[in-house]
């Protein structure tokens, strides 16, 4: 048992109507061994400053809303226990990096939503078959191949940790490219080459330099870093085959 009664949170504040740039504000928060950083933020909002703005919803690492940077590391604040930060000075809470800060700990996600949509994250068929023809059969082993890529909760920790996103804001980024790969690998899908127009572009997989920080911070083990490298390999194979086989790049490429 710890004798600690309070902890200090240094929270990044930004009021677009008042501040020219963000600043830190310290709060003394009661310590509870079972509290996470999100509980401390909720205590601040309820007891110290109701204007503190942040996103959260489920408090159980499912909704992906409460991603922030805690002591310099991307975390879901509902999983970041205060007890793990004791004895290391104040706990510094910042919004996700590589995004415009809307207010306090809330970032602007509009750019990400556009990137996500651009990779067409849905099953694409060359021809839809009628409902009466039945469902598309998928074996457990075929599902296993991509299931870990389906577990993304769009928490954006990967975008915050990726220096390439920071250096090139146009980079489609880890979560969206992992989702594209998830559909490319789906045995029911036939849209890999359609998605490749975006994922294989200059802002696609080739912008990634395999830092792999995305995979390191991912709370759901989606492995976006690996998904991007696999797409590089697939794109390279396509490039060689397109140059070796006349007419391949224009027509006749079906599901592979």
């Amino acid at each position: 048992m710890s004798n600690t009664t309070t902890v200090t949170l240094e929270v990044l504040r930004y009021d677009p109507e008042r501040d020219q740039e963000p600043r830190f504000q310290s709060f003394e928060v009661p310590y509870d061994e079972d509290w996470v950083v999100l509980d401390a933020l909720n205590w601040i909002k309820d007891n110290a400053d109701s204007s503190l703005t942040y996103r959260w919803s489920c408090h159980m690492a499912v909704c992906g809303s409460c991603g922030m940077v805690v002591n310099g590391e991307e975390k879901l604040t509902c999983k970041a226990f205060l007890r793990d930060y004791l004895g290391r000075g104040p706990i510094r809470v910042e919004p996700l990096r590589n995004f415009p800060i809307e207010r306090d700990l809330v970032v602007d996600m509009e750019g990400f939503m556009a990137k996500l949509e651009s990779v067409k994250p849905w099953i694409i068929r060359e021809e839809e078959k009628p409902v009466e023809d039945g469902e598309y059969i998928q074996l457990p082993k075929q599902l296993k191949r991509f299931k870990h890529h389906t577990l993304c909760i769009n928490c954006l920790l990967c975008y915050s940790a990726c220096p390439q996103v920071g250096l090139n804001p146009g980079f489609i980024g880890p979560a969206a490219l992992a989702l594209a790969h998830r559909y490319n690998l789906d045995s029911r899908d036939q849209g890999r080459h359609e998605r490749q127009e975006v994922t294989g572009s200059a802002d696609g997989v080739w912008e990634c330099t395999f830092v792999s920080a995305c995979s390191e911070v991912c709370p759901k083990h989606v492995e976006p870093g690996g998904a991007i490298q696999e797409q590089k390999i697939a794109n390279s194979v396509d490039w060689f085959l397109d140059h070796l086989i006349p007419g391949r790049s224009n027509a006749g490429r079906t599901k592979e």
Partner: protein
Amino acid sequence: MSRRPYTPKMTYGWWLDRPFYTRYMIRELSSAFVTAYSGLLIIGLWRLAEGEAAWNGYVSALSHPAALVFQGVALLFALYHTVTWFAVTPRTTPVIVGEDFLPPQPVIIAQYAAWIFASAVIIGAALWF
């Protein structure tokens, strides 16, 4: 209430913020030394094709203390490059065996085994001929 999002700027020293980033940048830097040493080997082939005198001059130049220091540094960076790439390779090669993915260790061990085998073959061939 009006919107006025603040866009933070990335600093030039971003790669010093976290040890993970610093290790990544050293891996990137190691590519320059691997490239430079590869260039040195290609120059060696070129000098060899020019005859015995040219080759002896090349070997003599490589024995210069500055060249030895470069080769030592290049070796360290090449080792770092190799070890760090071996470590991340399992991310790029998911292999399903039976019902589940192969864990990373066999993939990493296989790379070291291939490295040792290839080195043994090259050293053996060099000693034999």
